[in-house]
Structures are given as structure tokens and as C-alpha cells.
């Protein structure tokens, strides 16, 4: 077992992360200066709509980005500088210290190997186990993620499992080398409602029992409310609001978060329109100066178009990047 960090030292610290995809015709500014930290035992939810840069941010933490991506800033995980790491060390990091689960287990798992073989391979690669103990450990892992009749499932191919079981098998594989940080990219989005809640409860339980840090990317406010300790709301490649889940969802300070809450359908009266946010997210190839949300914002000021609003703090642990938020503590 790896030693676990206790106390307050962050497990992962990301500073001023920027990701650009440079193409022949245009450059996409996917992530534009994102900073956050995650401690052991903490769940950070990155909440955002498609194109907000939430998945790119997550992938940048493991440098799982295509070659045309230009990454800037600093990513430190457990005292290691991930962006400066040589390829060999990076391979040790991935699946060892940090591992990741994806939205679509059918494409993340290899269709031509059984679940047991795939979990075993990870174990052999990272902890030097031989085949037989690896199989025993794989069985333990399937039990850990509560797969019914795990002996039988070890020899099953991914297509023989239901969506929920496949997702559990992927979680088992991600946990196989006792990662200290688990990255989850919309792991419940493709699942049915009755299965989604099972996987969420499982992830919450495992994260707590194993004391892992977790970064969970989602577009779904309800899912974030179920699993997050802290939330970071992303819009156009920036974190526009962050703080404890109860504060961000209970008293959102940024107009975008407020709009997102109002436009999410959850028991609004049927005879009235939903308060939708007008317009659509900006084109990440041609970002304008100023607050990216300003063109859609009902509360915008002339100054919003001039420069990117800096962080303001409605409470010591609650940040919102908006000129409308009082600059000093009230």
C-alpha cells in the first residue's frame, strides 16, 4: 500500500493551467488559466456544459491530450511535476498514483480481452504481480465494486456485461493499484437513472473508504449535488465560481451559475416558461476580451467587456469571478 497524505497538503495542485489546440486553420483556446487544488479524501466536481473545457482540464492532469495540444501552467500531483515528467515516469503515474474512469466503458475497455485479463494487466504492469495472484486480486476488486457472481464475471468480455456492470468493472480496474487520486469523466452520464444512482453511491462509498481524492467532471447539477464536497463551475475555459457544494448550489454568486440552476428542469411549475439563459456559449476559436459570459448575461456592466473579471470572494472559501460580486467581504 502507498502511504496516504494526511493533513492539509493538497494531493493535486493545478496552477494557471492553459490548454490550446493549435490547428492549421484556427487555434482553440480550450482552457484559459485554471487553478484549483484537491486534498486527499475530497471530491471536487468540475461542472460545465459541453465545450467549457472541463474534460480537457481533467485530461491535462494526466497529459492524456493529443499532440497538437499546448499545455501551460503547472500541474503537481503528490509532489511530482506532471508537465515536466519524462514519458517513462508518466506511464508509472497513470494507473498508479492517478487513475481515470471514463464516460463510455464500452470504448474504454478492450473488447478482445476479458475483464479479469484487463485488470490483471494493470496489476502486473504497476505492482509486478504474476498472473495468478493478479487474478486473485482482480476477484477481490470485482467484489469491492459489488459485481454479483464475480468469479463468473472475471472471464466475461466487456460486451457480455450490462452497462452498469461494465462501469463497475472499469472502476475496479481504476482502483486496482490503490490510486490516491481518481479522475472521473462523466462516469454516470451514459447510464440509466436507476443504475446511475447505484454507481454514484458506490463511488462515494469507495472514495470515502479508501480516502482517495477525486475530481469528478459532470454537466449535471443533480449529480454534482449528490457527490461533490466542492464545486468548480467552468465556462469558456475558466473557473467562474468555486466553493463548497452547499454554498455554490445554495447561494450561487456568479450569474452563470445562477442561470444554470434556474434553467435546469427540476419541478418548475408547468404553466410557466423556464428561465433559460439566452444565446449559446462562445466560439472557443475567437474568444473576445472581457468576461466570456457577458454576451448572455442579464446583469452585465459596460466594464464586463473590457477585461477578464478577477476572483472575488463572497466568503473565505467561495470564489466568483464577476464584477457584480462585492470586492470585499460583506
Amino acid at each position, binding site marked *: 500500500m502507498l502511504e496516504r497524505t494526511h493533513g492539509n497538503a493538497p494531493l493535486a495542485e493545478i496552477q494557471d493551467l492553459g490548454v490550446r489546440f493549435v490547428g492549421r486553420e484556427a487555434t482553440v483556446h480550450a482552457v484559459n488559466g485554471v487553478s484549483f487544488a484537491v486534498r486527499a479524501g475530497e471530491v471536487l466536481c468540475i461542472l460545465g456544459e459541453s465545450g467549457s473545457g472541463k474534460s480537457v482540464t481533467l485530461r491535462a492532469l494526466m497529459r492524456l491530450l493529443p499532440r497538437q495540444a499546448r499545455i501551460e501552467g503547472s500541474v503537481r500531483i503528490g509532489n511530482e511535476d506532471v508537465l515536466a515528467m519524462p514519458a517513462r515516469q508518466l506511464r508509472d503515474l497513470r494507473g498508479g498514483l492517478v487513475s481515470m474512469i471514463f464516460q463510455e466503458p464500452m470504448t474504454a475497455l478492450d473488447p478482445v480481452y476479458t475483464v479479469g485479463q484487463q485488470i490483471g494487466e494493470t496489476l502486473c504492469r504497476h505492482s509486478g504481480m504474476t498472473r495468478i495472484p493478479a487474478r486473485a486480486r482482480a476477484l477481490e476488486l470485482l467484489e469491492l465494486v459489488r459485481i454479483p457472481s464475480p468469479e463468473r464475471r472475471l472471464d466475461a468480455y466487456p460486451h457480455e456485461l450490462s452497462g452498469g456492470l461494465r462501469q463497475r468493472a472499469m472502476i475496479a480496474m481504476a482502483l486496482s493499484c490503490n490510486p490516491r487520486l481518481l479522475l472521473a469523466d462523466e462516469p454516470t452520464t451514459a447510464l*440509466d437513472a436507476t443504475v446511475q444512482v447505484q454507481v454514484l453511491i458506490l463511488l462515494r462509498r469507495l472514495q470515502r473508504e479508501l480516502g482517495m481524492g477525486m475530481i469528478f467532471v459532470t*454537466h449535471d447539477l443533480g449529480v454534482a449535488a449528490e457527490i461533490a464536497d466542492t464545486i468548480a463551475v467552468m465556462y469558456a475555459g475558466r473557473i467562474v465560481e468555486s466553493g463548497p457544494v452547499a454554498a455554490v448550489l445554495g447561494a450561487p454568486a456568479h450569474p452563470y451559475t445562477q442561470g444554470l440552476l434556474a*434553467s435546469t*428542469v*427540476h*419541478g418548475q411549475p408547468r404553466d410557466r416558461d423556464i428561465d*433559460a439563459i439566452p444565446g449559446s456559449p462562445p466560439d472557443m476559436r475567437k474568444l473576445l476580451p472581457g468576461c466570456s459570459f457577458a454576451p448572455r448575461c442579464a446583469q452585465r456592466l459596460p466594464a464586463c467587456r473590457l477585461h477578464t473579471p478577477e476572483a472575488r470572494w463572497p466568503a473565505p472559501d467561495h470564489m466568483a469571478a464577476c464584477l457584480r460580486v462585492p470586492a470585499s467581504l460583506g
Partner: protein
Amino acid sequence: MAVIDTDKPILDARDRGGPAQPLLIARDLKKHFPVKGARGKSVQAVDGVSFDVQKGETLGIVGESGCGKSTLARLLLHLVVPDAGELVFDGEGVDTPDGIRVDALRRQVQMVFQDSYASLNPRMPIRDSVAFGPFIQGKKKPAAREIARDTLRKVGLDPELFGPRYPHELSGGQKQRVNIARALATGPRMVILDEPVSALDKSVEAQVLNLLRALKRQFNLTYVFISHDLSVVQYISDRVLVMYLGRVVELGPADAIFDKPQHPYTQALLGSRPSMDPARRIEEPPITGDPPNPIDPPSGCRFHTRCPFAEPVCETRDPPLGFWRGGEAHAAACHMLDPHSGHSLARDA
């Protein structure tokens, strides 16, 4: 609650049966798809589904993946021909000798699909895509183009700006508006919406839902709205039909379904909804496991393998869809509701 929007009389020259005649009646619809390589086996996608759609209402259909809701949508338009069962549109049997022909049905019923990009021709500017329906149905080209311009305006897209564009130049929300415009361009009385907002971001989803509600009022439309998202169905529907593995398990007014769900599956679905409140998280999943494979569905009540209240009777006998406790409007198919079923938890109504 009003099932039918009564503030506007339904005036339509094509109306044959009058306001009391359901616009669409489905009786015992059945569609089994044979499975390749497995002799005699089939996916029982829709297995004996019956319901009415009243004029002017929105009927929501919910269920998990594989429950047959999308096949059902296609059956209603004969995009997939049912193996058995009948469809009656405004009093006329669909595809029967003295009834309404399928092409005539499709003039009055249109459909919007989930994948807004795949449903548009990538090589056609959107004004042509929208004009295509009216043109095929006999309008001259200039008239069809005029209809397209007008309909694009009604879904909130400037025809001068967006008309010449191709689908890949539009955002997801804009493409879905084009699909809605295309469905409306032929002047349908009924629109079947198959997961129309599921692929959209939340902020755009709200815009499209508002648009759909406004268009329904403006054109006196009747909607069949299919979704896996209970909150969206609750918001948009007058009545709700809950499907599980090809069967109807519950059908009733939206308020009744959401306030007093009768079927254990509906209760589990509602209990699986995230709370939106971090102080009231779901601690235990309402049911375990995944929906079973629709090839070889469980015997008797198809939900018995996951139902916390299942007893031997549930395994052997099919529960009928009946009106038990909810009066004449609210039906459910569960042995616990039927006092004579032999289930130990069955009570007198």
C-alpha cells in the same frame, strides 16, 4: 388539472372525430425484432402496448434504455411496421382498407429525433431541408421556400442569416430548432418528439422546451414526448406513460404519477432522481441491478427480478394494466394493486 388545453378551441379543417375523439389510439401494439444467429429468439421491443393521445395534450413517455420507447415512437408513424395491433388516427384506422393511408398519416404526424445532426442532410442548406417536406407534399418551389422562411422565423432562427447555412455550421440547439421547423413545415397536427433535448446542454435545453411549449399553443399541436429525463417529462407532460421492457407499467395524469406513483418501478425511477440538494443525498439505491436484456425478458411481471416486493405470483402471472386506486385516469400494472391477485401485500382499494 386540465388534460386538454381548453383556452383555445381546437379548430382544424382536418378534424373528423370532434374534440372527444382521441387523436391517436394505439391498441395492443407489438414489435419483436428477430435476433441474428439465435434461432427463434427475438428482442421484444414493444409487447402489447395500448394508450390514447387526446387532442391538444402532451403525452410523456418515460423509461430506461431498451424499454422500447423509441421503437414505440417509430411504430406510431409506421416508420417501423407493427407485427400486431392497431393504430387509429382521429377515428380512422391506419393502413386499413377503409382507413387512413400511411402517407396521409405522415402529413398529419411528424417526428423530431434526438440526434439533431444525423437527422439533417449535411449537403443541404437548412432552408432547403425545411422546404423539402412541403415541396414533396405538392407545393411549388417558391411556395415551399416561403413556408420554410416563415417556419424558421417561428422557431427563432433568422431565415436570411441561417437559411443558407449548412447543418455543421450550427450549434446543437440551433440544429434542433431546424429539425422542429422541418417537422412543422408540413403543418402537422401531432408531433412525436423522441428525446428532443437529451443531447443539448442544460441552458439550451430550457430554451428548446420553452419553444416547444410556445409552438404547441400557436399551432394547436398534440405532442408525444419521449424522454429518459423524468424532470423534463414532469415539466412538459399532461399525462405520462411509464414503460419497462416493452410493456406499459403505469399511465396517468402527470401530477398523479409524480405525486402518488403506484407501480414499484415508477417509485424506483422517481427515487433515483438526484435530489439537487447536497443536504439530502440518496443514501441507498431504490433498486439494484440493471434492466434485464429485452431478449428473453423475465416471465410474468417483467419487473419482478428487480422488484423489492416480488412474490411467486409475480413470476408466474402477468399483471394486467388496470385502474385500481387512481380512478378512471390512472392505470398501473402490478399485482399489489389487484386485491384478487394473491399477492400478500395486495389490499382492497
